[in-house]
């Protein structure tokens, strides 16, 4: 019966390192957050599952020839998966609210302060023993403040692949935590009177404007920031397919089956980066802390900018909508709406917050392009 001995030698029990057990527990923790807490379940469920699979001893999911090895190298190493997700998100995004009120872009810009301030903070953290972030690491970590999952994954795969797992987990977790992180900051920086401001109805937007918008965004990105064109370009392609009215079957597929398929694989591949040696480090704690800081600063700067604009327009803008500038579509806009309703139960800010919300997506893609141009390659 030496078969039994061989079999015993190949069990998980006989091969576990305690770090793998902890990482599998982390994976189950992510599944719990995804399923029970509804934390961005579409991504965190496959990420958590991938984290479990990659830490199974003997099975070799992420070893050469393993399933996750292939998925990671085909989809993330090449940058293809996040770009396809971005195309799908573009096909799902309605820029109407932003086109009706272009100034909202300033809120999407202000909220990016979270990114660049966190970059500075990450380097500061190097004074703490145990941390040694390069500028590339710091940039990849800082993009968590962009509150945009695919952008974070894309940039991390380019600048700091070793930190990708922690960065992606932090990005999606904080995006899910927006309803908890943002309201206190929003309330601290605004007065009750501010929050009661009713904004005037948005003007209607024509189909033609919606169709030209992605081309315009693409055009100026080409001119001024070509490093951002992979992200912005695929996003604009999706949005153009959505708005042009001529390729509805492609648009429908891009925002349904294609994005679903890619999401499953992207999640598994990100999870495969949650190995013990990469994740169970003090740097992960730093990343989680910096991510929270980034979200906070982004939210605060968005609100402050909105407050400034409110002053300058004589109180036509409710400062709360500045918080939506971090992106985290559509969660942040919903949080704005909810906080606004608490102060004035007849004041529906959702559509007004959608403008800065989608502006935040563009803003963080632009920030990613700047970081790629200055820090990358």
């Amino acid at each position: 019966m030496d078969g039994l001995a061989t079999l015993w030698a190949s069990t998980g029990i006989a091969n576990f390192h305690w770090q793998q057990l902890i990482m599998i527990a982390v994976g189950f923790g992510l599944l719990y957050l995804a399923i029970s807490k509804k934390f961005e379940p579409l991504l965190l469920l496959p990420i958590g599952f991938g984290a479990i699979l990659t830490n199974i001893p003997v099975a070799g999911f992420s070893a050469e020839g393993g399933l996750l090895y292939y998925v990671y190298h085909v989809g993330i190493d090449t940058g293809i998966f996040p770009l396809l997700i971005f195309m799908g998100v573009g096909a799902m995004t309605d820029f109407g609210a932003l086109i009706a009120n272009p100034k909202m872009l300033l809120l999407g810009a202000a909220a990016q302060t979270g990114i660049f301030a966190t970059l500075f903070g990450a380097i500061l953290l190097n004074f703490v023993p145990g941390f040694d972030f390069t500028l590339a690491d710091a940039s990849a970590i800082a993009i968590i403040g962009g509150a945009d999952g695919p952008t974070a994954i894309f940039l991390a795969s380019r600048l700091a692949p070793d930190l990708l797992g922690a960065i992606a987990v932090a990005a999606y977790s904080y995006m899910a935590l927006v309803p908890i992180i943002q309201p206190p900051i929003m309330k601290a920086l605004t007065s009750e009177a501010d929050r009661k401001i009713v904004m005037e109805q948005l003007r209607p937007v024509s189909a033609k404007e919606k169709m030209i918008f992605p081309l315009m965004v693409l055009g100026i990105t080409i001119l001024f920031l070509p490093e951002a064109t992979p992200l912005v370009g695929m996003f604009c392609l999706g949005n153009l397919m959505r708005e042009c009215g001529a390729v509805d079957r492609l648009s429908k597929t891009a925002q349904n089956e294609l994005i679903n398929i890619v999401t499953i694989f992207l999640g598994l591949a990100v999870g495969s980066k949650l190995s013990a040696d990469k994740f169970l480090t003090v740097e992960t704690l730093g990343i989680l802390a910096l991510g929270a800081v980034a979200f906070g600063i982004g939210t605060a700067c968005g609100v402050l900018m909105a407050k400034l604009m409110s002053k300058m327009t004589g109180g036509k803008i409710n400062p709360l909508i500045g918080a939506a500038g971090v992106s985290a579509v559509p969660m942040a806009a919903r949080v704005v709406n909810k906080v606004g309703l608490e102060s004035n139960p007849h004041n529906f800010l959702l559509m007004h917050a959608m403008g800065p919300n989608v502006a935040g997506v563009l803003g963080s893609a632009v920030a990613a392009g700047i970081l790629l141009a200055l820090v990358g390659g």
Partner: protein
Amino acid sequence: MENNIGAVLLEAANLLVVGMGVVFVFLGILIFLMKLMSKIVGGDAPVPAAPVNTNRGGRKVSSASQDHKVKAAISAAIHQYRQDNK
């Protein structure tokens, strides 16, 4: 090493200023262009839906009537085809 961190910190500060500056400039240009576009394609007009609709209306109607003919032909053909294949 702390000296080294100092240099990187300076670079990070530089990034903070340049980065935020470029983000604002970039999105500022976009604001300008969006307003320009809205004026050109007529989205900002007092009754904005009207000119746009008229603008596209002409095309729509003619193509609609054209469509109608083609559809009639197709549905006639399909009707015949279905009866044959019953």
